[in-house]
């Protein structure tokens, strides 16, 4: 039974929850796995640090919470400060390199960096940075098939923005292929 715990962190408004939903949906609807998403609600979800947690498994998920994420996707310095220490020993830290300057890397984690904001800006829409991160995540973790994640992107964003978001996904995915860690 392979269980992977993933935590997405950033600040409210970055589309952290949507990133989590896309990854969970990709696993649960398009990749034949189980996936449970939980999120922190309340004041925390409106402004400062905000997180989405996804458990992905080949079998039925009983315990729905993330306790030792083996993968963390962090998009703000605050989220890094708050959450990075939770990463499992030898886990993976995926960071937005212009927004997160890691002072030190906890728990022997491997770090993957992507200038997602810049890549999003190249597409003319800074707001798709979360989707760039999702593309990069798919590329470097290989946890899910790229097709499944792509489908989940198309299935989760507003109808008029599908093309833009798929471009953002592809850009992130490509960056991962051409810049391995």
């Amino acid at each position, binding site marked *: 039974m392979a269980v992977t715990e993933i935590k997405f962190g950033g600040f409210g408004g970055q589309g952290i929850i949507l990133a989590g*939903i896309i990854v*969970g*949906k990709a696993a*649960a*609807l398009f990749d034949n796995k*189980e*996936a*449970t*998403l*939980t*999120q922190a*609600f*309340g004041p925390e979800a409106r402004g400062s640090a905000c997180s989405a947690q996804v458990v992905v498994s080949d079998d039925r*998920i*009983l*315990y*729905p*919470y993330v306790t030792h994420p083996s993968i963390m996707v962090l998009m703000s310095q605050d989220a890094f400060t708050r959450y990075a220490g939770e990463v499992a020993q030898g886990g993976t830290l995926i960071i937005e390199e212009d927004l997160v300057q890691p002072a030190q890397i906890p728990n022997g984690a491997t770090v993957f960096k992507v200038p997602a904001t810049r890549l999003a800006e190249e597409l003319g829409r800074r707001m798709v940075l979360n989707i760039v991160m999702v593309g990069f995540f798919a590329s470097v973790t290989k946890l899910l098939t790229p097709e499944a994640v792509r489908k989940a992107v198309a299935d989760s964003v507003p109808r008029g923005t599908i093309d833009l978001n798929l471009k953002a996904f592809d850009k992130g995915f490509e960056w991962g292929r051409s810049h391995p860690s």
Partner: protein
Amino acid sequence: MAADPSGVLTGQHYLDGNHAACEGALAAGCRFASGYPITPSTEVVERIAARLPRMGGMFIQMEDEIAASITLQGAVWAGKKALTVTSGPGFSLMMEHIGLAAMTECPCVYIDVQRGGPSTGLPTLPGQADMMQARWGSHGDYEIIALCPESPQECFSLTVEAFNLAEQWRVPVMLMMDECVGHMTERVVIPPADQIHVVDRRWTKKPPGEFKAFEPGPDMVPDMAKAGDGHHLFVTGLTHDERGYPVMNQKAQEKLVRRIVDKIRLNADKISRVEEDQIDGAEVVVISYGITSRVAMRAVQMARAKGIKVGTMRLIVAWPFPENRVRELASKVKAFVVPELNYGQMSLEVERVAAGKAPTVLVPHGGGEVHDPEVILEAIVQAARGAR
């Protein structure tokens, strides 16, 4: 009968429990909802408010939960299937009308997405401390049915079931969700409409003049008619006779209240639903419900890895409580372990029914998050050792 396809979003979805509950209601044929915003339940009515107008239904946000909890009953007597949704503080305000629904045998569904309490408590965080309120919250003697989903999938399927049970037994049915299940997102499979079993109202076939609105059938439940059909219904929260007319004496009270209690109590085994795992030969049985049953399962797996024989019983229907089954197990097991997000509610039922034949070990938690599985594990280990 099969569900009305206009309300069924057949397919695979990635939904949270609150949205899934909305889809369950629509699949069950609910076409009327009255609500009042309250965290962490609001997403249910938000989705209903978006969905109902496109399928000929009606949603109204009322001025408070007191209003919301009776507006739906008006809609039921006009012939609709109806629900309202709330959380702890709103649930408290709704109690009088749960009594009215019990007394007037109004089939309707109340969803309570439980948060930490008492009072305003923890609006955004989970609790399971409204379980006794669901059972006993309104004054007087009555019975209700309460269901506890453990996943978004069950938020869908048990909402359908809640409507079916309400129609079959003519009682208010409570869907006792918790914030975790409400805000957790998972795959939800909604079957085609013709594969969803829906119970229609028990419409009377008798003509006006012959029909008595509170004359019970063989299963102790009366058939129903709606306003505007010429029956000159008389519906009152006062103690009443079979015509619905108020009768202020002990004899009428005994006849009516005994029946509305007995129609559920005497049929408890038919209504009851539990999910059991590895009960045969178990030394310890963990009884839990809602989100806690999933958390407990992790502890159970750890205990089994240590060689302890642990069985589980998940209360899908919490009320009526599965008395006969728990009584039967009490003479076979060393102990019951009951983790719940409160300081002892359903555990009291286990303890009462076990009647000293097996100890009941409560694993309390004040709510705000779920149990640490290690704590439940420790209780299982202790219980298996025979320690009290």
